[in-house]
């Protein structure tokens, strides 16, 4: 019989390779509109928004990238927005979710929140275009540690 089971093998085990998304360094959140790669967006650039095809409040898609937090047990994701010039509240949203631990590509080793929809609750499309908005995201882990980041740009309706 070749079916072999290890009874005492801990000492002989292969070393575990370094897992991605291990906590290292300072906690940090990078944020970008989803149509841009990280590092491409600079303050004042356009932030594209539009209507969901089958209804609901207008939205802008954001992508966040987190380092330095242990998010394996999920996060609380908070989003809020403000008109930079008038100070008007452009909407807010909070929910529990899990981020993806990327192990390939430019974001390998980081936690990713892709295509997060900031919803402009209470606003119509024609009320939003041309506004300069600050859209913010906060990611909080299960221990209460959090990071937040904002993007500021002019809202431009263009969501195919």
């Amino acid at each position: 019989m070749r079916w072999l089971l290890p009874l005492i093998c801990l000492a002989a085990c292969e070393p575990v390779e370094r897992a991605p998304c291990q906590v290292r360094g300072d906690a940090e959140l990078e944020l970008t509109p989803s149509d841009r790669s990280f590092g491409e967006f600079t303050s004042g650039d356009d932030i594209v928004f539009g209507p969901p095809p089958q209804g609901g409040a207008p939205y802008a898609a954001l992508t966040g990238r987190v380092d330095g937090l242990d998010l394996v047990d999920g996060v609380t994701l908070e989003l809020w927005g403000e008109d930079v010039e008038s100070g008007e509240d452009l909407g807010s949203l909070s929910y529990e979710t899990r981020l993806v631990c990327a192990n390939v590509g430019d974001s390998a080793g980081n936690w990713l929140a892709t295509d997060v929809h900031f919803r402009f609750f209470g606003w119509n499309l024609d009320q939003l275009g041309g506004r300069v908005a600050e859209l913010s995201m906060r990611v909080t882990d299960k221990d209460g540690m959090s990071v937040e980041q904002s993007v500021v740009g002019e809202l431009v309706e263009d969501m195919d």
Partner: protein
Amino acid sequence: MRAALPLVALLSMIPTAEALACGGFFCNRDFPIDQAGEEVIFGVDEDAGTVDAHVSIAYQGASEDFAWIVPVANVPELFPSSDALFTGLRTQTKPQFYLQWDYSGECAWDMLYDDAEADADGGPPSPTTGGNGVTVVNEERVGPYDSVTLQAETADLLLSWLNNAGYDLPTDLSSVLEPYVASDQYFVALKLSAGSETGDLVPLGMRYEGRTASVPIQLTSVAATPDMPLTVYVLGEARSVPDNYLHVRINEAAINWFTGGDNYADVISRAADEAGGHAFATDFSGATRPGSIFNESSYNEGQLLSATTPFEWIDRLMGMGLPPSAALLAALQDAIPYPQTLADEGVSASNFYDCLSCYSEHVDSSSWDAAAATEALNTGLIDGLREAERILAAHPHISRMTSSLDADEMTVDPIFVFNGDMDQDASNVHTATLQFDCLSGETWEEADRTLILSDGREISLPSQQWIWEHETSEFDVMEPLTSPAAVVIEDLGSDGDGEMMFDYRDSAAAEAEDFRAEGTGACGCATTSPVGTVGLLLGLLPLALRRREDR
């Protein structure tokens, strides 16, 4: 139950071949209900700028309390759809998992033969103002439903108007309706027409201007169950992919091949969770099959119209080979009433129609009207089958995608786009091979085995005898390899191959190699075999710890 169940599917199916084999519509069996969660079928014609959406509707409760509502971007044309469309597409695209047995070496066959034998037993009118901030765009009867299409200034006004009009919707819908109201969406609300019963429910078809398929999942959160499956079929010119949800490729080692993949829904749920809760897996992508749902040439309306008795009518209909479905059963009940006395005696409707002559004393032949019965059949079934065929003929490609969402994950309406750059075909048929590695003289039960997955992973498994002796299962033994449920998490879009975020394939292959080389443990230790369950658990511990660190 007052609550509407928006976009929740009522799905019934019986394998066609099995049904026909017994000579009746329904094979004298109770009609099984496959509550598969929410299912929506989209046909997207980008050139014409139209979207057809077919939505199944499930409801449990009193007929007078039934109400249903869905937001749409533009004023839709409404039409009754067919559950045969759902059944047909589901049959074509449902994931299937087959385990082929392969014997290598010199297996002793006597016991195999003995056990094998033992096993063998086994278009809108002009808007009108509804008053109080509500604009009624259209009111019409659609199949068994009274429908109204309307806009409102606020969700509260919308609900107030609908409830006053007899659409019995719960007031706690207000918060999820409000965003749709705020963006000037239209709403289609349904209630059952007078004389219609909940048994008459058919899927609703909607055709509206648009080029993108999207499910208003936020509204579903009101009536969602935990880990509610969501299956979306998108028909169009090319393969469809989720645009604002991630795409996952499942880990075939997470599938329980020894039970026909009956844990697939669980794997999808775990994979979606691993992708943050917003992800779909592709169940199938490939060509549509026009003619697979309804063969027009086999339907002879003239024969039905000339039938002089209900017995003759139903015999002729049975010969036309219509697939069994809830819609067929409902249409038959419209054509030939199902006697309440038989229901009281416990005779099911399907039994009644399968053998009408068996219950001839309960059938009123004196008032037989073949034209009325045929018209009922056409309205309740044939028109829907023809519409199902129309949508198949209109679109060369179908994609089926499945997700699983909790109510609190229903924060984003999933959007689906076409991608002609990717590999267009993804089979729903998955096969693995269980190889029996017989040493000389070993029976198949004594032989160690290797499970070979389609991606080439070879997973060592103990003998069948060992499994029996230790009162465990192959799937339990494989547990260290069943996570993660998603081996690839990727962000797809309308062009290119998308961006991969998580790729566990190499790691999964390496783990399978370790598993194969070292038994079930994470290291190369060896013991003589077999050992007890405690030993097995000790062996799995290192892998479990390692998995935790990997996450």
